[in-house]
């Protein structure tokens, strides 16, 4: 029973923490709430009218939602790059970053699930997907695999930090025997979620642009660049807005991970481009459409030609120690990389898969305002969830939230 008392007290305390803060904090949360409300309004229109309010058609049947979903799975998987060194290799430098990384994974996964639900034609019958009461097409459909791995990863990333924080909240050390097996599992699981998501596309013989053995590995490389890049940016923000101590050393180590992953990603990009353009077949038409446009249709050109230079320049700058170790330059590079990979793994991957269509028809896709509204709403939801998680976690780690502390105060009265 004692545990429930502590849990209740933790919930009350964290509610107290997340509702208090500086003016800036309140403005931030207020803006996020507003954007979420706008997103919900847009979604209500979509529920009423159907997916016809989006820019998707029978020719390009997945768009902005699935693009963001794919990218965010990568962000979620990236937490592993911090978890592994900290919990498994016992590299203490990362300890401060890992809780943040796992919080980011939780937020990213919640966004992934929200994007998938937003993309569904019939959200009211989604119970058909619940194993047991629905009919699951396992193991045939990669989508069922994805449902399992994403929810499993969400569970792991909630339970491990929760256990650690719950112990710290009571002023106790977390037991390694409890969380290390979970951390080891999460390392494999993270690779799993991203590989499975890649297989979702890779397994379709109908879409030559995706039906490509490099897709899975490239997903991993780009994820391990974009995810930790986002973690660096978040850590930088947390450093300047809270007393949470994150040493330069930690950030520089994560920067190393970003750099290596970005380099591998670039090599794979070159390999992909070589295959598509050195000896082009009709399977290369999607790549042609993406990079050069096809038959006068070129909606994606500005996107991809923003992404490629950002990607290349950021990777080159990061490669040099002198630049990488300059935090200001590092932050700019991380931002560039994040944007570049968001475009490449989002729009640049999903949309050309449908263009040209199975019979060569080229119909372009442009998201509508409603689609963009829902998307922004879901991103705001992610930021909101992350802020709440991070604020509570930081409070506990800094010792501001303590179960005993409260009791002793009560004792004095």
């Amino acid at each position, binding site marked *: 029973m004692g545990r429930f008392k502590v849990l209740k007290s933790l919930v009350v305390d964290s509610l107290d923490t997340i509702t208090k803060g500086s003016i800036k904090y309140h403005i931030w949360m207020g803006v996020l709430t507003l954007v979420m409300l706008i997103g919900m309004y847009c979604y209500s229109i979509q529920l009423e009218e159907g997916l016809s309010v989006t820019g998707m058609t029978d020719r390009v049947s997945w768009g902005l939602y699935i693009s963001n979903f794919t990218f965010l799975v990568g962000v979620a998987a990236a937490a592993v790059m911090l978890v592994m060194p900290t919990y498994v290799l016992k590299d203490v430098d990362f300890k401060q970053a890992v809780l943040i990384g796992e919080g980011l994974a939780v937020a990213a996964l919640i966004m992934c699930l929200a994007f998938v639900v937003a993309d569904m034609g019939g959200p009211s019958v989604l119970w058909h997907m619940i194993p047991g009461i629905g009919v699951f097409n396992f193991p045939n459909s990669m989508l069922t695999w994805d449902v399992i791995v994403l929810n499993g990863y969400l569970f792991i990333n909630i339970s491990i930090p929760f256990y650690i924080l719950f112990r710290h909240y009571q002023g106790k050390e977390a037991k390694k025997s409890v969380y290390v097996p979970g951390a080891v599992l999460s390392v494999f699981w993270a690779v799993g979620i991203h590989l499975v998501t890649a297989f979702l596309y890779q397994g379709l*013989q109908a879409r030559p642009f995706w039906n490509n053995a490099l897709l899975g590995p490239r997903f991993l490389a780009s994820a391990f660049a974009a995810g930790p890049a986002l973690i660096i940016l978040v850590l930088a923000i947390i450093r300047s807005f809270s007393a949470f101590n994150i040493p330069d050393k930690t950030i520089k180590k994560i920067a190393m991970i970003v750099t290596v992953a970005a380099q591998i990603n670039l090599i794979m990009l070159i390999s992909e481009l070589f295959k598509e353009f050195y000896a082009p077949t009709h399977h290369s038409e999607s790549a042609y459409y993406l990079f050069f446009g096809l038959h006068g249709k070129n909606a994606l050109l500005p996107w991809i030609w923003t992404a490629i230079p950002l990607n290349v320049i950021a990777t080159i700058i990061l490669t040099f120690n002198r630049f990488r170790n300059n935090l200001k330059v590092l932050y700019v590079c991380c931002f560039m990389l994040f944007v570049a990979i968001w475009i490449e793994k989002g729009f640049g991957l999903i949309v050309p898969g449908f263009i040209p269509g199975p019979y060569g028809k080229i119909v372009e896709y442009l998201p509508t305002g409603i689609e963009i509204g829902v998307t922004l709403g879901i991103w705001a939801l992610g930021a909101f969830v992350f802020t709440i998680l991070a604020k509570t976690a930081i409070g506990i780690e800094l010792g501001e939230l303590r179960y005993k502390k409260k009791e002793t105060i009560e004792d004095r009265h």
Partner: protein
Amino acid sequence: MDRRTAFKKLTASLLIGAGAISTSCSTLASDDAKEKAQIDWEEQFKGNYKLMSDEEKQDTINRLMRSYELRTGKTISMTAENPAEDVLFGYAFNISKCQGYMDCVSACVKENNQDRNSEMQYIRIHEMKDGEGFKFDKADDNYYHEVPVEGHFYMGTQCFHCDNPPCVEVCPVQATWKEDDGLVVVDYDWCVGCRYCMAACPYDGRRFNWSKPEVPESEVNKNQHYLGNRMRKKGVMEKCTFCVQRSRKGKNPACVEACPTGARIFGNLLDPNSTIRWVLENKKVFRLKEDLGTDPKFWYFMD
């Protein structure tokens, strides 16, 4: 307790509650409204058609027919015929006969109650230049001029009812499957609208209801099959079923019947005396994208 009984109990208790609320809150709540509410509940929580017993199939088509009557005051006839034994449907298309008149397309739209607003069509007729072979990227599948045009030939595509259909593999909830007579069908009520099957189809055979499909009441084809031309909702997939409501009664699909040139041949592949067998045995036939290993049951040939 299995899923079915669990749902039945859950539904029953919810119904009592919902019924009590609707009668107490509204003096206008008629028996019809209550019945409609009950039908909607049971429809919302029914199982996958593929796994239903014949009795359950009958129950759901009875509910759907009654629901249509309650909504529109008109009656429809809906069946749930299962595949006949020793039947495997196949289709052949004569590219030297097709003149691009598109009668098949309009017959299909009418027969299968497709959405008139989005002008959904299962069949696409591609107009191609003679002597260039199948250049789909240069073909026109959306023409409005007089046909046939000199120096062109026409070919139709639709769902090919593959023997190894990629769309069935990828569906996360088994809302689409291959029936014993080879028809690839969709349970419109079980589909969650993820459109994964659409991405997996190499033949552009699937259509999605991006908004609520609408057919003027006077144009509704009232001879329906659960897996075929019954009314669809928004947010679900649909596709050509070789007119399951006709083919399982021994008739030709609407497109075959409507074709003025006789370019379309349909029949039972297991019947050695069928025309389709004669075509396959005596003509030079080929299929599209055979390298993908989907084994379409749809052949092209020429005279």
